[in-house]
């Protein structure tokens, strides 16, 4: 087991955001974290990383997350934040190389393993062709790919990503989802929060549906994305179809007010 979460609760400014979340992640899973705005998806990811104070038990493999050092945690899971902020005009290659920080002793320069990891990550995200360019001059999509390459260079068994597909064109969205699926097929695991239900249905091996700080559905896309859950949680009617054995979902319209289930 890569990650085991039991009864995770967290509050932001006195308001409870996570109310007892429990799940575990096995190697080879690509988990889509879905749910409406404000459901607690980002807070869940941030609590797993220790970025926001939370109660409950989190185990990283055999380690208790409450007692690991920041570096140990960083060797176990990498994180792609929602905000794509880059403060200084550093070159692409150096930025991707930052992913190697958890492995490098202070003041040591990059070793062969580090350089290989950086090269592989840049090739995977197709950013190696502009490695010399300043990251602040890149387009939004290019920037997103560089930041994901940075997380890949961290070479962790677990990758957490907060809305990684936002702001990407369809071709790069699919490239990214395919990459995550490939990582999972290779035995690593990815947990990504997603708003695009179509992408989630098509590429994820498992979906966690969060609403009001709780997991309300957990299972394969077919099990989680049903007309009923979409109506109850999102308040939308959706089209369901099938293409080469995989679910196709497209939200169509809001549920009429009188038929909408009240929680």
């Amino acid at each position, binding site marked *: 087991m890569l990650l085991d979460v039991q009864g995770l609760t967290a509050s932001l400014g006195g308001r409870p955001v996570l109310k007892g979340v429990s799940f575990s992640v096995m190697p080879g899973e690509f988990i889509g974290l879905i749910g409406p705005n404000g459901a607690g998806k980002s807070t869940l990811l*941030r609590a797993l*990383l*220790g*970025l926001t104070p939370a109660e409950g038990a989190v185990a990283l493999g055999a380690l208790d997350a409450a007692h690991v*050092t*920041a*570096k*140990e*945690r*960083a*060797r176990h*899971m*990498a*994180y792609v*934040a929602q*905000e794509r*902020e*880059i*403060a*200084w*005009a*550093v*070159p692409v290659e*150096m*930025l991707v190389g*930052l*992913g190697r*920080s*958890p492995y*490098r002793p*202070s*003041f040591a320069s990059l070793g062969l393993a580090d350089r290989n990891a950086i090269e592989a990550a840049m090739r995977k995200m197709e950013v190696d062709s502009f490695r010399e360019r*300043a990251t602040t001059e890149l387009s939004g999509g290019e920037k997103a790919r560089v*930041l994901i390459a*940075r997380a890949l260079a*961290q070479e962790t068994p677990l990758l957490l990503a907060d809305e990684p597909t936002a702001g990407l064109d369809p071709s790069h969205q699919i490239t990214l989802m395919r990459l995550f699926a490939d990582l999972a097929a290779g035995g690593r695991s990815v947990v990504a929060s997603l708003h695009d239900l179509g992408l989630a249905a098509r590429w994820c091996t498992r979906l966690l549906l969060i609403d009001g700080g709780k997991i309300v559905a957990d299972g394969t896309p077919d099990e989680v994305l049903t007309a009923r859950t979409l109506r109850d949680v999102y308040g939308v009617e959706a089209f369901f179809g099938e293409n080469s054995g995989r679910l196709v979902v497209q939200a169509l319209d809001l549920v009429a007010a009188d038929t909408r289930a009240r929680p």
Partner: protein
Amino acid sequence: MSDTSRYRLVLAALAILATFLFLLSLTVGPAGLGFADSIAALFSDKAGAIELIMREIRLPRALLGLMVGATLGLSGAALQGYLRNPLAEPGLIGVSASASLGAVIAIYSGLTIVFPLALPLSALAASVLAVVVVQALAGLRGSTLTIILAGVAVSSFAGAMTSLALNLSPNPFAALEIMFWMLGSLTDRSMTHVWLALPFMLVGWAMLAALGRALDALTLGNETAASMGIDMRRVQLLAVFGTAASVGAATAVSGAIGFVGLVVPHMLRPMVGARPSRLLPASALGGACMLLTADILVRLIAPGRDLKLGVLTAIVGAPFFLWLVYRTRRKLA
């Protein structure tokens, strides 16, 4: 040329320039000594007038120029990296203003007449106190914004107390002394000042230098840096106390010297590929070069008038900064 070799070239050029300026600073002064004579006097066993001037007046002045300049450049680069704000400068977290207040209290109370070292000691004590207050206000998991706000609050309070001391000053000479001290200068400092400031500066430099890797990671923001194994609490303590120790000591012996910590990192950032860890040593050397140049200039421009160093750095620094802003704007447009 690769990135790394260009960086080494920049560092080497700055080191050579700093050495040259240091030697030049040793040989400029009203006594009008020859270059060979003055350098030889530094190392001779005699106790003549030249030896005295070199060892007791020029050497401490040049050494302090080097140390204070390096401190301002290094801490400016470290704070800009830590706060991810190109407008950050060493004075931002309240160290300079409170060190000035400490010095003013020493002058105002007459302590400096009884015991000359009371001034730097009091300034150091005040800067340590200020930074403890800033740290306590911001908290251990403080965001950079709360640190900036706490620093601004402490700076304003220290500034207000300094004004109060000026306002209530019983004799105009004390007020004048306070005013002149606050303009910043390296005139008439002794080796005692060097030995007093050096240990604090060394500790501060070591703390700031240890930030390099963390500052690189911080390019991506606090949260991503933390997810890459950077202990943000350690980073905050190193940045805040490293600045306090080194800039507190610098202000204690030289008064408040502005613009060096702000402008030098800006000038050098493009030359080191904008990488925060590489900016630290480059900016330390650059700060030393800038301060030594300014200190040589005040002696050349107005030898008899005691032009203050802080005045010159501000006069040269402000228009230069305007030009930097203009250039940045054109780039953004």
